[in-house]
């Protein structure tokens, strides 16, 4: 089975809220350099979904990522946990895009890869949180898709997906080739083992430039955007927390109930 997993390198979403700074002029957000980037959490889960299929059914996993300034240790994690190949669309002209330019570039790269049964993406990138690119790739390649998967299995040429939905889940069937976006409920990515790190050291990522995938320059990066970002700002928080004290925690808890009663909240 041929599996492709799309991964995005992002600013660590678990970084403390205070550590984010915004450049108002450029409408860009930053973290201090000591906080390393990560593979988007949901994309890691997508990779785990592919690894589980490979564990059971065998096959090959190609990890694909688009960006600029990849941190080798971060993105090569995909190889260390079991992906067989890593393709990086790395170029300055891929920068500054939105979901439209990103989905276009990834879809063109997937056309070049050529063979695939299932394409996996995270349900959304854990930075811009849109959840558009997966559906976009499916639409550009004319593939059926299932979003928000928490379990994926395949029999013959049909994929069965449990899809997260409100108060439970849906059981959805889709033929291959198809695209599946994966939700966190599927479970965390397996740990990196030393053997995997050694394996990853032996595999060189393939780097493709826009011309390698035959990309129309007007459709990638900032030129390919269909949206304009006008302003990026931190929401203002006005809440002042009243800390309730006591001789010990138990007494503080009692005092808290009294304070809540006073405030007519209980």
């Amino acid at each position, binding site marked *: 089975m041929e599996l492709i997993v799309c991964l995005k390198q992002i600013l660590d979403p678990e970084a403390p809220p205070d550590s984010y700074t*915004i450049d108002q002029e450029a409408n860009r957000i930053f973290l201090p350099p000591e906080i390393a980037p990560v593979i988007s959490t949901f994309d890691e889960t997508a990779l785990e979904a592919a690894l589980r299929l490979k564990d059971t059914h065998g096959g090959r996993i190609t990890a694909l990522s688009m960006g600029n300034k990849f941190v080798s240790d971060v993105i090569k994690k995909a190889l260390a946990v079991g992906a067989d190949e890593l393709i990086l669309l790395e170029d300055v002209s891929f920068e500054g895009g939105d979901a439209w330019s990103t989905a276009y570039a990834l879809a063109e790269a997937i056309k070049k890869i050529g063979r695939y049964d299932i394409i996996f993406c995270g349900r959304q990138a854990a930075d811009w949180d849109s959840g558009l690119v997966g559906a976009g790739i499916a639409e550009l390649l004319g593939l059926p898709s299932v979003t928000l998967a928490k379990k994926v299995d395949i029999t013959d040429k049909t994929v069965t997906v449990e899809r997260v939905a409100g108060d*439970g889940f849906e059981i959805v069937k*889709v033929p291959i080739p198809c695209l599946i976006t994966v939700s966190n409920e599927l479970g965390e990515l397996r740990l990196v083992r030393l053997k995997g790190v050694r394996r990853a050291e032996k595999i060189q990522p393939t780097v493709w430039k826009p011309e390698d995938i035959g990309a129309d320059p007007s459709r990638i990066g900032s030129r390919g955007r269909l949206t304009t970002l006008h302003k*990026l700002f931190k929401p203002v928080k006005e809440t002042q927390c009243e800390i309730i004290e006591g001789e*010990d925690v138990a007494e503080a808890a009692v005092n808290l*109930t009294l304070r809540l009663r006073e405030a007519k909240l209980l």
Partner: protein
Amino acid sequence: MTEHKGVLIIGEIIEENLAAVTLELLGCGRTLADKLGERLSGLLMGSDTRPHASKAIAYGADKIYIMEDPLLEDYQSDLYLAAVEKMVRRVMPKIVLMGQTPMGRDLAPRLGFRMHAAVLMDCVELDIDTQTGRLLQVRPVYGGNARAVFTSETRPQMATVRSKAMSPLERNSSRKGDIIEIKPEIDPSAMRTKLLEKVKEEVAGIKIEDAAILVTGGRGIGGPEGFEQLEDLAGLLKGAVGATRPVVDSGWCPTSRQIGLTGKVVAPDLYIAVALSGSSQHMAGCSGAKHIVAINSDPQANIFREASFGIVGDWKKALPSFIEKVRELLKE
């Protein structure tokens, strides 16, 4: 080129009721349509949609299109996509709105790419730029650590709207509007992705999105056993128990309890946050709460920046006396 005009909302009927988020879409769609001086229409799909169409008019729509077909009863992505695309091409609205629901999350991106029209997902504010007439779309980004204002360069301008971010209008049954039936002309062979079954994970008691009081536990609770104490407290207060994503991912609570960016959005009167740090991703689901109370052993935890009242300490020591005192106070 045909002129785009008006606002179109894509409604949802859930358990034989117009979804709460659909009423919210009608409310904000009405405001946007009035600012443009244009009309608000809506689309409802399923079977027996007429009563819901009348209700949607009472909540602000000028016109409701209905598409009836047994195959549209449940959300089927390929069929809904074809039906909604047909509707949008026919109405040619300036703005298309959907809820940020399991349907909206699946349908809106595909529709956007199919029509080569940008979609901004999970918007919490929408407004019309008075100078350009464009739709200003505000959405939280970076897990809620920042907000961004966008416009779309394509038409129609499409957005999904976060639950509870907008207010519905008061129901006004004297409002007049048109109900127009459209033949969906469903082609079942277009259905590649097929919904076979819906599995409900029943949660006893009040649904978290409906509860006035929520008791939510985080990773710090340490295991499923701790949630029994939260249940006791929620039971006393006639509320419900919520959970953070790590709790659900660890299997301590069912997915239906998850509050946050990738879970449910709640807006209770009182939100008691126990042993949770208050990550931006979690707060995205509960920042609409009127009052947040925090119990956490880490004085630096972000939740203390969001809460109105808090105690710093081990929840295991705090909660038993908290519960006991609440029981006593409620007896008075």
